[in-house]
């Protein structure tokens, strides 16, 4: 079995998943055969979260056995952070802006110019994300960068997620001309961006 995360749920979980442990916090695990890839694990975490389970999620890219998940549960006091995140999920914001065309890289100067261009695009993306996050007025994760975009997460009560999505969409439509770029607002996701193991590690020490 592969660990998906930890939960205070002690009764029902979606078909095929199992709870391990016997305390107030349990490890939610999935059969190895159906959780081989990070995307498989992410899919099952989303399914569990949608079923109403309060999940402190393990990063899907990390394959942790159920035994290891149980061991970690015993070394760290996870109850406070699970309680804190119990009724919450995250909306993930993503901003993509077009690259500015630059001259082909033929020497050191053009290489530096290309790097400067990339830096400027990323800075604009970050500014736009900060702008949107400020509108939300809720806890925001640090920015992260992928190949083509910049992302961040907003922590939100499950019951308020749709309303916040609509509010942000309405505001962004009204800001057309002031901001630009391709913006995606997705979710509700399990609170990946707020699963703070540093706090867990500190409390376990």
């Amino acid at each position, binding site marked *: 079995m592969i660990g998906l*995360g930890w939960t205070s749920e002690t009764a029902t979980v979606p078909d095929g998943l199992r709870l391990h442990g016997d305390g107030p916090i349990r490890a939610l695990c999935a059969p190895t055969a159906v959780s081989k890839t990070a*995307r498989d694990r*992410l*899919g099952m975490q*989303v399914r569990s979260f*949608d079923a109403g389970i309060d999940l402190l*999620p*393990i*990063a*899907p*890219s*990390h394959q*942790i056995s159920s*035994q*290891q998940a149980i*061991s*970690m549960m*015993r*070394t*760290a006091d996870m109850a406070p952070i699970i309680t804190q995140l119990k009724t919450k999920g995250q909306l*993930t914001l*993503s901003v993509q802006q077009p690259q500015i065309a630059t001259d082909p890289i033929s020497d050191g100067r053009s290489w530096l110019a290309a*790097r*400067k261009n*990339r*830096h400027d695009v990323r800075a604009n993306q970050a500014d736009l994300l900060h702008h949107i996050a400020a509108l939300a007025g809720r806890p925001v*994760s640090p920015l*992260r960068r*992928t*190949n*083509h*975009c910049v*992302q961040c*997460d907003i922590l939100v009560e499950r019951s308020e997620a749709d309303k916040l*999505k609509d509010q942000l*969409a309405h505001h*962004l*439509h009204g*800001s*057309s*001309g002031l*901001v*630009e*770029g*391709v*913006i*995606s*607002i*997705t*979710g*509700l996701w*399990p609170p*990946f*961006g707020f*699963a703070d*193991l*540093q706090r*867990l*590690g500190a409390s*376990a020490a």
Partner: protein
Amino acid sequence: MGVELHLATADEVLCSGDDRLVDLVDGLLHHGVVVRGELWLTVADVDLVFLGVDLLLAAPHKIRPADQPT
């Protein structure tokens, strides 16, 4: 160019083949219970070097399988 806005649920993102949404999922995969360290070395607004590291925090004797020597 103005704002092009896309709204999607988690299920819609997971089922999508859209490059932008695939990129979004890739960004999520490394988050959760890990600690990610990122460091950009930048000189005069030019990004020169990126260092990234994922850490999983737990007592070593607890996270290793019981039959593996410490």
